[in-house]
């Protein structure tokens, strides 16, 4: 039976490598056919901002990879509302992440689920394994 895996993303990109190396685990983990969710809380929500351009800092811009998650069947992406608001951000500031639903003739659906802190707590409660980054 598949286990429920949740990747907890709590850190901003580029300042540290955790965001990038978390994404690398997600991509590899997708092959294991478990029930995968990603959560972005705190500074982790900054990972999903639109318009990242790393030309000036000499680092690799890995933000396009988030848009590929749908192709890996990773489509439960929880973003905590309170974390966004505290940072003066809204969903419009984030990349538009989608996936295609095989069961509905490949209809394109949103991957991001904007949830309140208490809704997210319920989702986490229901997980089997938490991977923290």
């Amino acid at each position: 039976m598949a286990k429920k895996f949740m990747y907890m993303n709590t850190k901003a990109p580029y300042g540290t490598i955790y965001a990038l190396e978390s994404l690398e685990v997600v991509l590899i983990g997708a092959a294991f056919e478990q029930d995968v969710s990603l959560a972005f809380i705190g500074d982790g929500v900054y990972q999903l901002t639109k318009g990242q351009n790393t030309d000036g800092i000499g680092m690799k811009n890995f933000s396009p990879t988030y848009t590929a998650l749908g192709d890996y069947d990773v489509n439960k992406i929880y973003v905590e509302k309170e974390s966004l608001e505290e940072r003066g951000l809204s969903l419009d500031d984030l990349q538009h992440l989608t996936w295609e639903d095989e069961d509905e003739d490949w209809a394109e659906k949103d991957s991001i689920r904007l949830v309140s802190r208490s809704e997210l707590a319920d989702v986490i409660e229901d997980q089997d394994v938490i991977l923290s980054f």
Partner: protein
Amino acid sequence: MKLGIQINEGPYQHQSSDSAYQFAKAALAKGHEIFRVFFYHDGVNNGTRLAVPPQDDRNITQQWTELQKEHNLDLVVCIAAAQRRGLMDEDEAKRQGKDANNIAEGFRISGLGQLIEAGIECDRLVTFGA
């Protein structure tokens, strides 16, 4: 109970590896099984045999090597993280055309799938990081 341990920071700079080691020792003494210790991020630096800490301090890598021997632990260093940071074994050094390797006894290099597998197989995954 079957336990998996993940270590995200290098030796000495953070307490993570020390805490994980103390935790692992206590778990083994209580009869739990440690399915795997997975070294990720800077955690891969715990696996170098070139460290020479001061005589009056602990040798973190050696502690892991000895615990590995005693309990036949599976100490896995993530290859992707290791490549970035310069931790390699003999095979990897050959493949990459490097003239030296630095992995310590008792550690092996493998892929990220080993972490996912630990998550699947273990009753609990315990992560030590910063």
